Protein backbone atom coordinates (compact mmCIF):
# COMPACT_ATOMS: atom_id res chain seq x y z
CA UNK A 1 0.00 0.00 0.00
CA UNK A 2 1.30 3.46 -0.90
CA UNK A 3 1.78 6.04 1.83
CA UNK A 4 -0.07 8.75 -0.11
CA UNK A 5 -2.65 8.45 -2.92
CA UNK A 6 -0.63 10.78 -5.18
CA UNK A 7 2.52 12.90 -5.09
CA UNK A 8 2.99 16.66 -5.53
CA UNK A 9 5.65 19.10 -6.70
CA UNK A 10 5.02 22.69 -5.63
CA UNK A 11 6.69 26.04 -6.18
CA UNK A 12 5.59 27.40 -2.81
CA UNK A 13 6.00 26.24 0.74
CA UNK A 14 3.01 24.06 1.60
CA UNK A 15 4.23 23.60 5.16
CA UNK A 16 4.33 20.28 6.95
CA UNK A 17 0.64 19.50 6.42
CA UNK A 18 1.19 17.47 3.28
CA UNK A 19 4.88 16.70 3.67
CA UNK A 20 4.47 13.00 2.76
CA UNK A 21 2.99 14.05 -0.61
CA UNK A 22 5.86 16.31 -1.65
CA UNK A 23 8.53 15.39 -4.18
CA UNK A 24 11.29 17.48 -5.76
CA UNK A 25 10.33 16.38 -9.26
CA UNK A 26 8.48 13.70 -11.19
CA UNK A 27 5.33 13.99 -9.07
CA UNK A 28 1.78 13.17 -10.15
CA UNK A 29 0.58 16.74 -9.56
CA UNK A 30 2.28 20.07 -10.25
CA UNK A 31 1.37 23.16 -8.21
CA UNK A 32 2.57 26.42 -9.74
CA UNK A 33 1.80 30.12 -9.80
CA UNK A 34 0.34 31.37 -13.07
CA UNK A 35 -2.57 32.97 -14.84
CA UNK A 36 -6.01 31.94 -13.61
CA UNK A 37 -9.11 33.01 -15.56
CA UNK A 38 -11.96 34.94 -13.95
CA UNK A 39 -14.45 32.44 -15.32
CA UNK A 40 -14.52 29.14 -17.20
CA UNK A 41 -17.27 30.38 -19.51
CA UNK A 42 -19.81 27.66 -20.18
CA UNK A 43 -19.78 25.63 -16.98
CA UNK A 44 -21.50 22.37 -16.11
CA UNK A 45 -21.90 23.34 -12.47
CA UNK A 46 -20.97 26.14 -10.12
CA UNK A 47 -21.46 27.67 -6.72
CA UNK A 48 -20.95 31.06 -5.16
CA UNK A 49 -17.15 30.89 -5.41
CA UNK A 50 -16.43 27.99 -7.80
CA UNK A 51 -17.08 26.73 -11.32
CA UNK A 52 -16.74 23.29 -12.86
CA UNK A 53 -16.34 22.55 -16.54
CA UNK A 54 -15.37 18.99 -17.42
CA UNK A 55 -11.83 18.43 -16.19
CA UNK A 56 -11.39 22.02 -15.03
CA UNK A 57 -12.29 23.51 -11.66
CA UNK A 58 -12.03 27.18 -10.75
CA UNK A 59 -12.15 28.66 -7.24
CA UNK A 60 -12.03 32.29 -6.07
CA UNK A 61 -11.42 33.21 -2.43
CA UNK A 62 -13.07 36.60 -1.70
CA UNK A 63 -10.42 39.28 -1.84
CA UNK A 64 -7.75 36.60 -2.12
CA UNK A 65 -6.21 33.88 -4.23
CA UNK A 66 -7.73 32.04 -7.19
CA UNK A 67 -7.11 28.43 -8.17
CA UNK A 68 -7.46 26.49 -11.41
CA UNK A 69 -7.39 22.72 -10.97
CA UNK A 70 -7.00 20.76 -14.21
CA UNK A 71 -7.26 17.09 -15.08
CA UNK A 72 -6.14 15.89 -11.68
CA UNK A 73 -2.56 16.79 -12.52
CA UNK A 74 -2.11 20.53 -12.14
CA UNK A 75 -3.11 23.33 -9.76
CA UNK A 76 -2.38 26.85 -10.96
CA UNK A 77 -2.79 29.60 -8.41
CA UNK A 78 -2.91 33.37 -8.71
CA UNK A 79 -2.20 35.28 -5.51
CA UNK A 80 -4.04 38.59 -5.90
CA UNK A 81 -1.92 39.76 -2.97
CA UNK A 82 -2.49 36.70 -0.77
CA UNK A 83 0.41 35.44 1.32
CA UNK A 84 2.01 31.99 0.96
CA UNK A 85 0.15 30.99 4.09
CA UNK A 86 -3.27 31.96 2.74
CA UNK A 87 -2.57 30.44 -0.69
CA UNK A 88 -1.53 27.17 0.93
CA UNK A 89 -4.55 27.15 3.24
CA UNK A 90 -7.16 27.26 0.48
CA UNK A 91 -5.06 25.20 -1.92
CA UNK A 92 -4.96 22.39 0.62
CA UNK A 93 -8.67 22.77 1.34
CA UNK A 94 -11.23 23.18 -1.41
CA UNK A 95 -8.75 23.01 -4.34
CA UNK A 96 -7.26 19.81 -2.89
CA UNK A 97 -10.76 18.34 -2.64
CA UNK A 98 -11.46 19.12 -6.30
CA UNK A 99 -8.09 17.59 -7.22
CA UNK A 100 -9.04 14.37 -5.42
CA UNK A 101 -12.30 14.08 -7.35
CA UNK A 102 -10.51 14.70 -10.63
CA UNK A 103 -8.20 11.81 -9.74
CA UNK A 104 -11.14 9.54 -8.95
CA UNK A 105 -10.53 9.69 -5.20
CA UNK A 106 -13.19 10.11 -2.53
CA UNK A 107 -12.34 12.72 0.14
CA UNK A 108 -14.29 12.49 3.39
CA UNK A 109 -14.78 15.48 5.66
CA UNK A 110 -13.27 13.85 8.71
CA UNK A 111 -10.55 14.02 11.31
CA UNK A 112 -9.16 10.75 12.60
CA UNK A 113 -6.98 8.89 15.06
CA UNK A 114 -5.00 5.69 14.54
CA UNK A 115 -4.88 2.70 16.86
CA UNK A 116 -3.35 -0.73 16.18
CA UNK A 117 -3.36 -0.18 12.42
CA UNK A 118 -7.01 0.88 12.36
CA UNK A 119 -8.28 4.37 11.66
CA UNK A 120 -11.23 5.78 13.58
CA UNK A 121 -12.65 8.86 11.89
CA UNK A 122 -14.99 11.61 13.09
CA UNK A 123 -17.21 13.52 10.77
CA UNK A 124 -19.90 16.14 11.08
CA UNK A 125 -20.81 19.57 9.89
CA UNK A 126 -18.35 22.41 10.11
CA UNK A 127 -18.13 23.35 13.80
CA UNK A 128 -19.24 19.90 15.00
CA UNK A 129 -15.95 19.32 16.81
CA UNK A 130 -14.08 16.87 14.54
CA UNK A 131 -10.64 18.42 14.96
CA UNK A 132 -11.16 19.12 18.65
CA UNK A 133 -12.04 15.52 19.39
CA UNK A 134 -9.12 14.12 17.38
CA UNK A 135 -6.77 16.54 19.15
CA UNK A 136 -8.12 15.63 22.57
CA UNK A 137 -7.79 11.90 21.85
CA UNK A 138 -4.19 12.36 20.74
CA UNK A 139 -3.52 14.18 24.00
CA UNK A 140 -4.90 11.09 25.74
CA UNK A 141 -2.44 8.78 24.04
CA UNK A 142 -4.08 7.80 20.77
CA UNK A 143 -2.19 8.58 17.58
CA UNK A 144 -3.43 11.55 15.57
CA UNK A 145 -3.90 10.50 11.93
CA UNK A 146 -5.50 13.31 9.89
CA UNK A 147 -7.30 16.62 10.23
CA UNK A 148 -10.31 17.70 8.21
CA UNK A 149 -9.85 15.40 5.20
CA UNK A 150 -9.51 11.62 4.92
CA UNK A 151 -8.98 10.23 1.43
CA UNK A 152 -10.33 6.95 0.06
CA UNK A 153 -9.30 5.39 -3.23
CA UNK A 154 -12.45 3.54 -4.39
CA UNK A 155 -10.30 1.27 -6.57
CA UNK A 156 -8.64 -0.12 -3.43
CA UNK A 157 -11.85 -0.94 -1.56
CA UNK A 158 -12.83 -4.53 -0.92
CA UNK A 159 -15.60 -6.17 1.10
CA UNK A 160 -13.28 -6.56 4.06
CA UNK A 161 -11.02 -3.56 3.85
CA UNK A 162 -11.13 0.19 3.33
CA UNK A 163 -7.60 1.56 2.94
CA UNK A 164 -7.48 5.29 3.64
CA UNK A 165 -4.98 8.15 3.49
CA UNK A 166 -4.32 11.15 5.69
CA UNK A 167 -5.29 14.36 3.93
CA UNK A 168 -3.65 16.83 6.32
CA UNK A 169 -1.00 16.06 8.90
CA UNK A 170 -1.30 19.36 10.82
CA UNK A 171 -4.24 20.22 13.02
CA UNK A 172 -6.09 23.51 12.88
CA UNK A 173 -7.75 24.52 16.13
CA UNK A 174 -9.58 27.59 17.39
CA UNK A 175 -8.14 29.21 20.50
CA UNK A 176 -10.88 27.80 22.74
CA UNK A 177 -10.25 24.28 21.40
CA UNK A 178 -6.53 24.64 22.06
CA UNK A 179 -7.32 25.45 25.64
CA UNK A 180 -9.74 22.56 25.89
CA UNK A 181 -7.47 19.91 24.41
CA UNK A 182 -4.06 20.98 25.70
CA UNK A 183 -2.54 20.76 22.21
CA UNK A 184 0.55 22.81 21.47
CA UNK A 185 -0.19 26.08 19.69
CA UNK A 186 1.80 26.83 16.53
CA UNK A 187 1.44 29.62 13.96
CA UNK A 188 -1.80 31.39 13.01
CA UNK A 189 -3.89 29.79 10.26
CA UNK A 190 -4.54 33.17 8.61
CA UNK A 191 -2.56 36.38 8.38
CA UNK A 192 -5.75 38.33 9.16
CA UNK A 193 -5.56 40.16 12.50
CA UNK A 194 -7.88 38.80 15.16
CA UNK A 195 -8.38 35.43 13.45
CA UNK A 196 -8.06 33.17 16.48
CA UNK A 197 -7.38 29.86 14.73
CA UNK A 198 -3.98 28.21 14.90
CA UNK A 199 -2.04 25.26 13.65
CA UNK A 200 -1.39 22.88 16.50
CA UNK A 201 0.79 19.92 17.32
CA UNK A 202 -1.09 16.85 18.46
CA UNK A 203 -0.07 15.22 21.70
CA UNK A 204 0.84 11.99 19.90
CA UNK A 205 1.00 11.41 16.18
CA UNK A 206 1.44 8.49 13.81
CA UNK A 207 3.79 9.36 10.98
CA UNK A 208 2.36 6.86 8.51
CA UNK A 209 -0.03 8.37 6.00
CA UNK A 210 -2.20 5.33 5.36
CA UNK A 211 -4.26 2.91 7.38
CA UNK A 212 -7.45 0.88 7.35
CA UNK A 213 -10.61 2.82 8.01
CA UNK A 214 -12.41 0.84 10.68
CA UNK A 215 -15.14 3.15 11.87
CA UNK A 216 -16.73 6.43 10.96
CA UNK A 217 -18.39 8.35 13.77
CA UNK A 218 -21.00 11.00 13.00
CA UNK A 219 -20.71 13.67 15.71
CA UNK A 220 -24.00 14.73 17.25
CA UNK A 221 -25.17 16.97 20.06
CA UNK A 222 -28.77 15.99 20.58
CA UNK A 223 -29.16 13.83 23.66
CA UNK A 224 -28.23 16.55 26.14
CA UNK A 225 -30.93 18.75 24.64
CA UNK A 226 -33.50 16.01 24.80
CA UNK A 227 -32.84 14.91 28.39
CA UNK A 228 -31.49 11.52 27.30
CA UNK A 229 -28.30 9.79 28.43
CA UNK A 230 -25.94 12.50 27.15
CA UNK A 231 -22.97 10.38 25.97
CA UNK A 232 -23.79 7.51 23.65
CA UNK A 233 -22.45 5.55 20.69
CA UNK A 234 -24.98 3.93 18.38
CA UNK A 235 -24.39 1.86 15.27
CA UNK A 236 -26.16 2.96 12.11
CA UNK A 237 -26.85 0.50 9.29
CA UNK A 238 -28.55 0.18 5.93
CA UNK A 239 -29.94 3.19 4.12
CA UNK A 240 -29.45 5.43 7.14
CA UNK A 241 -25.74 4.58 7.22
CA UNK A 242 -25.42 5.35 3.52
CA UNK A 243 -27.17 8.67 4.07
CA UNK A 244 -24.80 9.53 6.92
CA UNK A 245 -21.82 8.48 4.85
CA UNK A 246 -23.01 10.68 1.99
CA UNK A 247 -23.27 13.62 4.38
CA UNK A 248 -19.66 13.06 5.39
CA UNK A 249 -18.30 13.47 1.86
CA UNK A 250 -16.06 16.51 1.50
CA UNK A 251 -17.67 19.18 -0.73
CA UNK A 252 -20.12 16.72 -2.21
CA UNK A 253 -21.26 19.22 -4.83
CA UNK A 254 -17.74 19.14 -6.25
CA UNK A 255 -17.96 15.35 -6.30
CA UNK A 256 -21.30 15.31 -8.06
CA UNK A 257 -20.05 17.78 -10.65
CA UNK A 258 -16.61 16.26 -11.23
CA UNK A 259 -17.02 12.49 -10.69
CA UNK A 260 -20.72 12.38 -11.49
CA UNK A 261 -23.43 11.17 -9.14
CA UNK A 262 -23.40 7.50 -10.30
CA UNK A 263 -19.65 7.10 -9.78
CA UNK A 264 -19.82 8.86 -6.42
CA UNK A 265 -22.73 6.75 -5.27
CA UNK A 266 -20.98 3.56 -6.41
CA UNK A 267 -17.89 4.53 -4.39
CA UNK A 268 -20.00 5.15 -1.30
CA UNK A 269 -21.81 1.84 -1.71
CA UNK A 270 -18.48 0.02 -1.80
CA UNK A 271 -17.18 1.93 1.19
CA UNK A 272 -20.22 1.22 3.34
CA UNK A 273 -19.64 -2.50 2.92
CA UNK A 274 -16.24 -2.24 4.58
CA UNK A 275 -16.77 0.43 7.24
CA UNK A 276 -18.92 0.56 10.35
CA UNK A 277 -20.87 3.78 10.76
CA UNK A 278 -21.87 5.02 14.20
CA UNK A 279 -23.17 8.18 15.80
CA UNK A 280 -21.32 9.68 18.74
CA UNK A 281 -23.66 11.91 20.71
CA UNK A 282 -22.18 14.02 23.48
CA UNK A 283 -22.73 17.34 25.28
CA UNK A 284 -20.74 20.33 24.11
CA UNK A 285 -20.44 21.93 27.53
CA UNK A 286 -16.79 22.36 28.45
CA UNK A 287 -17.20 20.70 31.82
CA UNK A 288 -18.53 17.55 30.10
CA UNK A 289 -15.73 17.40 27.51
CA UNK A 290 -13.31 15.33 29.58
CA UNK A 291 -15.92 12.68 30.25
CA UNK A 292 -17.09 12.32 26.65
CA UNK A 293 -13.51 12.24 25.35
CA UNK A 294 -12.56 9.53 27.85
CA UNK A 295 -15.64 7.57 26.78
CA UNK A 296 -14.50 7.61 23.15
CA UNK A 297 -10.87 6.85 24.03
CA UNK A 298 -11.97 3.79 26.00
CA UNK A 299 -14.20 2.66 23.15
CA UNK A 300 -11.34 2.84 20.65
CA UNK A 301 -8.88 1.10 22.98
CA UNK A 302 -11.43 -1.66 23.54
CA UNK A 303 -12.01 -2.06 19.80
CA UNK A 304 -9.40 -4.78 19.40
CA UNK A 305 -10.74 -6.80 22.33
CA UNK A 306 -14.28 -6.44 20.98
CA UNK A 307 -13.20 -7.81 17.62
CA UNK A 308 -11.41 -10.71 19.31
CA UNK A 309 -14.54 -11.56 21.26
CA UNK A 310 -16.61 -11.37 18.07
Amino acid sequence: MKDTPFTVTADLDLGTRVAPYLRGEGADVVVAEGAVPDSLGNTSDGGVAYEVDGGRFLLHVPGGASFLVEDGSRITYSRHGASDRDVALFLLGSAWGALCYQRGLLPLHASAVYHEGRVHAFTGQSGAGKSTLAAALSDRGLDFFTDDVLIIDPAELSQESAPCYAGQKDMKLWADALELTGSQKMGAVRDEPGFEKFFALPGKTETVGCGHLASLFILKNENARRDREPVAIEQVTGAEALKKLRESVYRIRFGNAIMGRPALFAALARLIAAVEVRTFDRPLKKREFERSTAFMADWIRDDGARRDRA
Partner: protein
Amino acid sequence: MRAVTGPDRGDIGVPHSRPDRNLVWLTSFPKSGNTWTRVLLSNLTAREGIDNDRFVSIAGSISSNRAAFDQASGLPSSDLTDDEIDLLRPGFYRAQSRDALVRIFVKVHDGYHDSGNGEPLFPADCSAGAIYLVRHPFDVAVSYANHQGHTDYDRIVRQLNDPAHIMAGGSKAQLRQRTLGWRGHYLSWQRQDEIPVLTVRYEDMLADTAGELRRMAQFLDLPEAGDDALIAEAVAESSFERLRAKEDEHGFRERPEATGRFFRAGRAGDGWNVLSAAQRQALLDVNGDVMEELGYRA
Protein backbone atom coordinates in the same frame (compact mmCIF):
# COMPACT_ATOMS: atom_id res chain seq x y z
CA MET B 1 -53.59 23.08 -0.82
CA ARG B 2 -51.20 21.18 -3.01
CA ALA B 3 -48.05 20.18 -1.19
CA VAL B 4 -44.85 20.12 -3.19
CA THR B 5 -41.99 17.80 -2.40
CA GLY B 6 -38.46 18.44 -3.57
CA PRO B 7 -36.82 15.25 -4.84
CA ASP B 8 -33.49 15.87 -3.15
CA ARG B 9 -34.36 17.43 0.16
CA GLY B 10 -37.79 16.05 0.87
CA ASP B 11 -39.03 19.47 1.92
CA ILE B 12 -42.68 20.26 1.81
CA GLY B 13 -43.93 23.75 1.37
CA VAL B 14 -45.86 26.17 -0.71
CA PRO B 15 -45.33 26.34 -4.46
CA HIS B 16 -43.46 29.47 -5.39
CA SER B 17 -45.53 32.15 -7.01
CA ARG B 18 -42.54 34.23 -8.16
CA PRO B 19 -39.95 31.81 -9.47
CA ASP B 20 -37.15 34.35 -9.42
CA ARG B 21 -37.71 35.39 -5.79
CA ASN B 22 -38.09 32.33 -3.63
CA LEU B 23 -36.87 33.49 -0.24
CA VAL B 24 -39.12 34.74 2.54
CA TRP B 25 -37.16 36.24 5.41
CA LEU B 26 -38.64 35.57 8.85
CA THR B 27 -36.68 38.24 10.59
CA SER B 28 -36.54 39.23 14.25
CA PHE B 29 -34.28 39.96 17.15
CA PRO B 30 -33.84 36.61 18.98
CA LYS B 31 -36.70 35.36 21.17
CA SER B 32 -39.44 37.30 19.45
CA GLY B 33 -41.66 34.50 18.17
CA ASN B 34 -39.69 33.40 15.10
CA THR B 35 -39.85 29.68 15.82
CA TRP B 36 -43.53 29.91 16.75
CA THR B 37 -44.20 31.62 13.43
CA ARG B 38 -42.43 28.82 11.55
CA VAL B 39 -44.57 26.30 13.43
CA LEU B 40 -47.76 28.23 12.61
CA LEU B 41 -46.91 28.49 8.92
CA SER B 42 -46.03 24.79 8.84
CA ASN B 43 -49.32 23.82 10.44
CA LEU B 44 -51.14 26.04 7.99
CA THR B 45 -49.47 25.02 4.75
CA ALA B 46 -47.90 21.60 5.15
CA ARG B 47 -49.06 19.83 8.28
CA GLU B 48 -48.47 16.37 6.85
CA GLY B 49 -44.74 17.01 6.73
CA ILE B 50 -44.30 18.01 10.38
CA ASP B 51 -42.10 15.70 12.40
CA ASN B 52 -41.36 15.42 16.11
CA ASP B 53 -37.77 16.45 15.53
CA ARG B 54 -38.07 20.02 14.29
CA PHE B 55 -41.81 20.72 14.69
CA VAL B 56 -41.78 22.45 11.31
CA SER B 57 -42.16 21.39 7.71
CA ILE B 58 -41.73 24.56 5.70
CA ALA B 59 -38.50 24.55 3.72
CA GLY B 60 -35.60 26.67 4.87
CA SER B 61 -33.18 27.08 7.71
CA ILE B 62 -31.44 30.08 9.25
CA SER B 63 -29.47 32.76 7.43
CA SER B 64 -26.40 31.80 9.48
CA ASN B 65 -26.39 28.10 8.50
CA ARG B 66 -22.66 27.37 8.26
CA ALA B 67 -22.95 23.97 6.58
CA ALA B 68 -25.29 25.30 3.87
CA PHE B 69 -22.93 28.22 3.28
CA ASP B 70 -19.96 25.87 2.89
CA GLN B 71 -21.87 23.71 0.42
CA ALA B 72 -23.02 26.63 -1.69
CA SER B 73 -19.77 28.57 -1.66
CA GLY B 74 -17.37 25.67 -1.99
CA LEU B 75 -15.20 27.31 0.65
CA PRO B 76 -14.63 26.36 4.29
CA SER B 77 -16.26 29.14 6.31
CA SER B 78 -14.13 28.13 9.29
CA ASP B 79 -11.03 29.31 7.39
CA LEU B 80 -12.63 32.61 6.34
CA THR B 81 -12.96 35.74 8.42
CA ASP B 82 -16.46 36.83 9.36
CA ASP B 83 -16.11 39.81 7.03
CA GLU B 84 -15.05 37.58 4.11
CA ILE B 85 -18.07 35.38 4.75
CA ASP B 86 -20.36 38.42 4.62
CA LEU B 87 -19.01 39.27 1.18
CA LEU B 88 -20.22 35.90 -0.10
CA ARG B 89 -23.56 35.82 1.67
CA PRO B 90 -25.63 37.65 -0.99
CA GLY B 91 -24.46 35.10 -3.55
CA PHE B 92 -25.23 32.29 -1.09
CA TYR B 93 -28.85 33.46 -0.78
CA ARG B 94 -29.22 33.93 -4.53
CA ALA B 95 -28.00 30.36 -5.01
CA GLN B 96 -30.56 29.12 -2.46
CA SER B 97 -33.33 30.93 -4.32
CA ARG B 98 -32.12 29.71 -7.70
CA ASP B 99 -31.97 26.08 -6.53
CA ALA B 100 -35.31 26.19 -4.69
CA LEU B 101 -38.14 23.96 -5.80
CA VAL B 102 -40.47 25.50 -3.23
CA ARG B 103 -40.62 28.79 -1.41
CA ILE B 104 -37.92 28.93 1.27
CA PHE B 105 -38.54 30.51 4.68
CA VAL B 106 -35.26 31.72 6.16
CA LYS B 107 -35.00 32.66 9.83
CA VAL B 108 -32.96 35.85 10.21
CA HIS B 109 -31.49 37.42 13.34
CA ASP B 110 -29.14 39.69 11.38
CA GLY B 111 -30.01 43.32 11.12
CA TYR B 112 -30.44 44.58 7.56
CA HIS B 113 -26.98 45.77 6.60
CA ASP B 114 -24.32 45.91 3.96
CA SER B 115 -22.30 42.83 3.04
CA GLY B 116 -19.08 44.84 2.99
CA ASN B 117 -18.91 45.88 -0.65
CA GLY B 118 -21.92 48.15 -0.91
CA GLU B 119 -24.42 45.39 -1.58
CA PRO B 120 -27.15 44.52 0.95
CA LEU B 121 -26.56 41.23 2.79
CA PHE B 122 -30.10 40.18 1.81
CA PRO B 123 -30.57 40.83 -1.90
CA ALA B 124 -33.98 42.04 -3.03
CA ASP B 125 -33.66 40.16 -6.31
CA CYS B 126 -34.11 36.79 -4.56
CA SER B 127 -36.55 37.99 -1.89
CA ALA B 128 -40.30 37.44 -1.94
CA GLY B 129 -40.70 39.52 1.22
CA ALA B 130 -39.94 39.72 4.91
CA ILE B 131 -42.13 39.11 7.93
CA TYR B 132 -40.70 41.23 10.72
CA LEU B 133 -41.51 39.88 14.19
CA VAL B 134 -41.07 42.21 17.13
CA ARG B 135 -41.59 41.76 20.87
CA HIS B 136 -41.43 44.10 23.84
CA PRO B 137 -37.74 44.44 24.78
CA PHE B 138 -38.42 43.83 28.49
CA ASP B 139 -39.80 40.38 27.66
CA VAL B 140 -37.12 39.74 25.06
CA ALA B 141 -34.49 40.37 27.74
CA VAL B 142 -35.91 37.73 30.07
CA SER B 143 -36.37 35.16 27.34
CA TYR B 144 -32.95 35.83 25.81
CA ALA B 145 -31.25 35.34 29.19
CA ASN B 146 -33.05 32.03 29.61
CA HIS B 147 -31.94 31.04 26.10
CA GLN B 148 -28.33 31.75 27.07
CA GLY B 149 -28.76 29.76 30.26
CA HIS B 150 -28.22 32.50 32.85
CA THR B 151 -30.02 35.24 34.78
CA ASP B 152 -27.47 38.01 34.40
CA TYR B 153 -30.01 40.57 33.20
CA ASP B 154 -27.51 43.44 33.27
CA ARG B 155 -25.53 41.56 30.63
CA ILE B 156 -28.63 40.95 28.54
CA VAL B 157 -29.69 44.60 28.75
CA ARG B 158 -26.23 45.58 27.52
CA GLN B 159 -26.61 43.20 24.57
CA LEU B 160 -30.04 44.54 23.59
CA ASN B 161 -28.75 48.10 23.86
CA ASP B 162 -25.54 47.48 21.92
CA PRO B 163 -25.60 48.38 18.19
CA ALA B 164 -22.46 46.23 17.84
CA HIS B 165 -24.08 43.16 19.43
CA ILE B 166 -23.22 40.01 17.46
CA MET B 167 -24.23 36.40 17.69
CA ALA B 168 -22.00 33.40 16.84
CA GLY B 169 -19.23 33.71 14.22
CA GLY B 170 -15.59 32.65 14.56
CA SER B 171 -15.41 29.18 16.06
CA LYS B 172 -19.15 28.92 16.64
CA ALA B 173 -21.46 26.54 14.83
CA GLN B 174 -23.33 29.39 13.12
CA LEU B 175 -22.03 32.25 11.00
CA ARG B 176 -21.68 35.67 12.58
CA GLN B 177 -24.87 37.67 12.85
CA ARG B 178 -24.72 41.40 13.50
CA THR B 179 -28.04 42.10 15.20
CA LEU B 180 -27.35 45.86 15.54
CA GLY B 181 -29.06 45.69 18.94
CA TRP B 182 -32.84 45.60 19.53
CA ARG B 183 -33.48 49.13 18.26
CA GLY B 184 -31.00 48.94 15.41
CA HIS B 185 -32.46 45.64 14.27
CA TYR B 186 -35.97 47.06 14.05
CA LEU B 187 -34.98 50.30 12.37
CA SER B 188 -32.64 48.66 9.87
CA TRP B 189 -35.42 46.46 8.49
CA GLN B 190 -38.06 49.19 8.65
CA ARG B 191 -35.89 51.81 6.95
CA GLN B 192 -34.90 49.71 3.97
CA ASP B 193 -37.26 49.84 1.01
CA GLU B 194 -35.82 47.06 -1.14
CA ILE B 195 -37.78 44.17 0.38
CA PRO B 196 -41.49 44.39 1.26
CA VAL B 197 -41.98 43.98 5.02
CA LEU B 198 -44.96 42.91 7.10
CA THR B 199 -44.43 43.84 10.75
CA VAL B 200 -46.06 41.59 13.35
CA ARG B 201 -46.01 42.22 17.09
CA TYR B 202 -45.57 39.13 19.26
CA GLU B 203 -48.13 40.53 21.68
CA ASP B 204 -50.71 40.72 18.86
CA MET B 205 -49.91 37.12 17.93
CA LEU B 206 -50.70 36.12 21.52
CA ALA B 207 -53.92 38.15 21.62
CA ASP B 208 -55.24 37.13 18.21
CA THR B 209 -53.15 34.34 16.78
CA ALA B 210 -55.61 33.54 14.01
CA GLY B 211 -55.86 37.17 12.94
CA GLU B 212 -52.09 37.62 12.76
CA LEU B 213 -51.59 34.30 10.97
CA ARG B 214 -54.23 35.37 8.45
CA ARG B 215 -52.36 38.65 7.90
CA MET B 216 -49.15 36.74 7.28
CA ALA B 217 -50.89 34.38 4.88
CA GLN B 218 -52.38 37.30 2.98
CA PHE B 219 -48.99 39.02 2.80
CA LEU B 220 -47.41 35.82 1.48
CA ASP B 221 -50.31 35.32 -0.94
CA LEU B 222 -50.97 31.84 0.43
CA PRO B 223 -54.10 30.09 -0.82
CA GLU B 224 -54.99 29.25 2.81
CA ALA B 225 -55.38 32.92 3.68
CA GLY B 226 -59.13 32.82 3.15
CA ASP B 227 -59.77 29.49 4.88
CA ASP B 228 -60.79 30.29 8.46
CA ALA B 229 -61.18 26.63 9.41
CA LEU B 230 -57.64 25.79 8.31
CA ILE B 231 -56.27 28.81 10.14
CA ALA B 232 -58.12 27.81 13.32
CA GLU B 233 -56.71 24.28 13.08
CA ALA B 234 -53.19 25.61 12.55
CA VAL B 235 -53.52 27.88 15.59
CA ALA B 236 -54.76 25.02 17.76
CA GLU B 237 -51.93 22.72 16.63
CA SER B 238 -49.39 25.46 17.37
CA SER B 239 -50.57 26.40 20.85
CA PHE B 240 -47.88 26.76 23.50
CA GLU B 241 -49.52 24.04 25.55
CA ARG B 242 -49.28 21.70 22.57
CA LEU B 243 -45.68 22.67 21.82
CA ARG B 244 -44.60 22.36 25.45
CA ALA B 245 -46.16 18.90 25.68
CA LYS B 246 -44.42 17.89 22.48
CA GLU B 247 -41.09 19.20 23.75
CA ASP B 248 -41.57 17.32 27.03
CA GLU B 249 -42.18 14.12 25.12
CA HIS B 250 -39.65 14.36 22.30
CA GLY B 251 -37.31 17.21 23.18
CA PHE B 252 -36.65 19.99 20.70
CA ARG B 253 -33.68 20.18 18.40
CA GLU B 254 -33.27 23.96 18.60
CA ARG B 255 -33.12 23.96 22.39
CA PRO B 256 -29.68 25.17 23.51
CA GLU B 257 -27.82 22.80 25.82
CA ALA B 258 -27.76 25.38 28.60
CA THR B 259 -31.52 25.90 28.55
CA GLY B 260 -34.02 23.80 30.42
CA ARG B 261 -36.78 24.27 27.91
CA PHE B 262 -37.19 26.06 24.57
CA PHE B 263 -40.94 26.70 24.74
CA ARG B 264 -40.80 28.41 28.10
CA ALA B 265 -43.62 30.82 28.93
CA GLY B 266 -45.18 32.05 25.72
CA ARG B 267 -46.68 35.08 27.43
CA ALA B 268 -46.24 38.82 27.62
CA GLY B 269 -45.34 40.84 30.69
CA ASP B 270 -42.58 38.81 32.38
CA GLY B 271 -40.14 41.64 31.91
CA TRP B 272 -41.88 43.87 34.43
CA ASN B 273 -41.71 41.18 37.11
CA VAL B 274 -38.18 40.00 36.49
CA LEU B 275 -36.12 43.03 35.46
CA SER B 276 -35.18 45.68 38.01
CA ALA B 277 -36.39 49.26 37.61
CA ALA B 278 -32.85 50.26 36.65
CA GLN B 279 -32.67 47.57 33.96
CA ARG B 280 -36.03 48.60 32.52
CA GLN B 281 -34.92 52.23 32.54
CA ALA B 282 -31.70 51.34 30.74
CA LEU B 283 -33.71 49.66 28.00
CA LEU B 284 -36.08 52.61 27.80
CA ASP B 285 -33.23 55.11 27.56
CA VAL B 286 -31.84 53.47 24.44
CA ASN B 287 -34.97 52.09 22.81
CA GLY B 288 -37.66 54.53 23.90
CA ASP B 289 -38.42 56.00 20.47
CA VAL B 290 -39.00 52.60 18.87
CA MET B 291 -40.97 51.35 21.88
CA GLU B 292 -43.25 54.35 21.51
CA GLU B 293 -43.64 53.75 17.78
CA LEU B 294 -44.71 50.17 18.52
CA GLY B 295 -47.05 51.17 21.36
CA TYR B 296 -44.92 49.42 23.98
CA ARG B 297 -45.46 50.83 27.47
CA ALA B 298 -42.50 51.52 29.70
